């Protein structure tokens, strides 16, 4: 079994009356891409800031690489790469100088640093922008520069706090692929996001947070198994009799049916061939239907079932 790279035990952080982290515990193992998923204000960034010893907390312990994390734990900090939610680069330095500056905070050997800086710039695909100042870069390229500054020193633990906010799809894909590559190269990754698709795509294990609490933890399959829903069937139907709706509701493995006048949504728990059995009912009653599609549960469904609120609704 892999060693725990990060251990957070019973962490409590208060801002006056507000409890930002409520007895939050976590264990992240070596080689994982660990996702912290939750809506804005759920405590993800607060957790990261406490983890990095930037933020004072009221209670709890934090260990990284088996050692107690403190502001002066420079030997631990040396092994951590951090990509902040807000882009943290010098406006007055070029792309190359920025990466060199941050790499130089960790690597003192000039030759080694030069190589690392080149590697980082190449890794994020900014080779053609070496002499560009940040204000000349697009949002996506700026995020990539932010990442290059965070990973140039080849850290063992990389923390990415919402690195894809306001990023175009092309840059987002590049970033996500890059994170997976860093992980393949041996880095343990902590990835926070409120984009569940991203977390589903790259994370090997996920903790879902809400209101400063961890509400669920596991692999994406484990999380999905925690909830009742296993399949959601959507069918476009114009004019559906209540009797037909009731007949569908009575089908085995169907636990909820919703109809808004145009779209029939059927929630199933377990079972096979649910879609076929539902369509059979419609055909039996000569009911015309349009587009038909079936969805497997997402992390949003997990969040919805546990908290009663959709993750997306919270973002709005």
């Amino acid at each position, binding site marked *: 079994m892999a060693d725990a790279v990060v251990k957070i035990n019973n962490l409590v952080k208060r*801002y006056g009356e507000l409890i930002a982290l409520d007895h939050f515990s976590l264990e992240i193992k070596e080689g994982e891409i660990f996702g912290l998923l939750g809506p804005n204000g759920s405590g993800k960034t607060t957790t990261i*800031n406490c983890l*990095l*010893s*930037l*933020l*004072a907390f009221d209670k709890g312990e934090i260990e990284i690489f088996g050692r107690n994390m*403190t*502001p*002066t734990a*420079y*030997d631990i*900090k*040396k092994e*951590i790469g*951090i990509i*902040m*939610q*807000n*882009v*943290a*680069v*010098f406006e*007055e*330095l070029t792309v190359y*100088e920025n990466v060199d*500056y*941050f790499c*130089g*905070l*960790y690597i*003192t050997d000039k030759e080694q640093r030069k190589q690392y800086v080149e590697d980082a710039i190449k890794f994020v695909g900014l080779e053609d922008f070496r002499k560009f100042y940040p204000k000349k870069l697009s949002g996506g390229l700026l995020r990539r520069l932010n990442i290059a*500054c965070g990973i140039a020193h080849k850290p063992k633990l990389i923390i990415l706090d919402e690195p894809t906010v306001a990023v175009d799809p092309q840059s987002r894909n590049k970033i996500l692929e890059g994170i997976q590559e860093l992980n393949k190269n041996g880095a343990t990754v902590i990835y926070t996001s409120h984009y569940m698709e991203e977390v589903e795509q790259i994370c090997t294990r996920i903790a879902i947070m809400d209101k400063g609490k961890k509400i669920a933890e596991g692999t994406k399959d484990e999380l999905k198994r925690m909830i009742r829903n296993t399949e959601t069937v959507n069918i476009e139907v114009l004019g559906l009799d209540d009797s037909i709706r009731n007949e569908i509701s009575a089908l085995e493995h169907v636990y909820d049916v919703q109809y808004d006048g145009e779209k029939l949504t059927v929630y199933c728990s377990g079972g096979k061939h649910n879609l076929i059995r539902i369509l059979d009912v419609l055909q039996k009653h000569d009911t015309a239907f349009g587009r038909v599609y079936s969805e497997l549960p997402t992390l949003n469904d997990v969040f919805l079932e546990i908290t009663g609120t959709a993750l997306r609704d919270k973002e709005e």
Partner: protein
Amino acid sequence: MFFHNFKYEILSTSRVKTFLFWLMVFPMILGTLFKMAFGDVYEKDVLFSSIPTAVVETSENAVFRQVIDSIEEADEPLLKVTYTDEETAKQMLKDGKAKGIIYVGEKLSLSVTEQKISQVVLKSFVEQYGINEKIIRDTAEKDPTKLQAVIEKLSEDVSACNEIPVTSGNTDVYTQYFYNLIAMVGMFGSVTGLHITVQNQANLSALGARKNCSPTPKSTGLFASLLGSYMMQSVCMLLCVTFIHFVLKIDFGKNLPLVYLSAIIGGILGVSIGFLFGSLNRFSIEVKTGITMAVSMLSCFLSGLMMGQIQGVITEHIPILNKINPATVITDSLFCLDMYSDRSHFISKILTMLAISVFCTAAGILVTRRKKYASL
């Protein structure tokens, strides 16, 4: 690690265009405007110029003519004489075209309508001529070539008081405004000092937070940033003084090296004050910027940048303020160089600046050394 931080501090600060404008370009513009506004005033009002004088000859006096010719040949002639008739002379006096009328007869007599410096000088001249007429007459008759030397020698006795300069510095009162300008550039350094805290404190900027995550000790980063800013500010101060002295031709007498020294320490003082204000924990960055700018400008105002007489008013009512107001201390250190040949006053001002700088820097470091923040 220190030099890595130092190098990039210099590189990044030197590229902040707003700093370059306020610390280099703006003082040059303001200095040029000062020069345009005050440059001629000093030369016209304060420096000595020839006294326009009407001469009415009631009888011929060749010796007097010789004396006048001799005076007018000098590099800076005492008198600018117009020989005329009495009526015209009176009109010239009335119109202000002549400061006085010298009547040349057997004896000289003087007619003036005011009692100002020019008239006093004319009166002394006429009196001295009367006393020394025989000597002058003899010289003119025996060896006219020595006449100018004799007149110059006699002129030394025109005043009962000998002028003994107390300093080798510049006595131009308008130079004070350029000293205020140097102090202002020093105080603008407070913005650089504020910038240091913004870039090093996790609760003020993403960059500060990012730096705090690195294995570089905070003190190393802070000292590197401070030293870098001190150096940048010093360069700005040197440029300012150089521009004022060599381009605007403002004379600092023999004290130029000490003016440079005072300006550099003034710059360090400004950076240190900004660093302290930036370190105040309770305020947002906007409030800190506001406080820093307000204090800097108020300090400059109280030192006389906008109103030369303000320092005198403060000396009369709140003298302690002049002793601790940073801009006043910078200005006074420069002023001391002109006023006192004794350097003790200058040294005292320099020590005051250093003491305030050390206090601000130490207090700022103590506050900034906080390891964790309550909120970010």
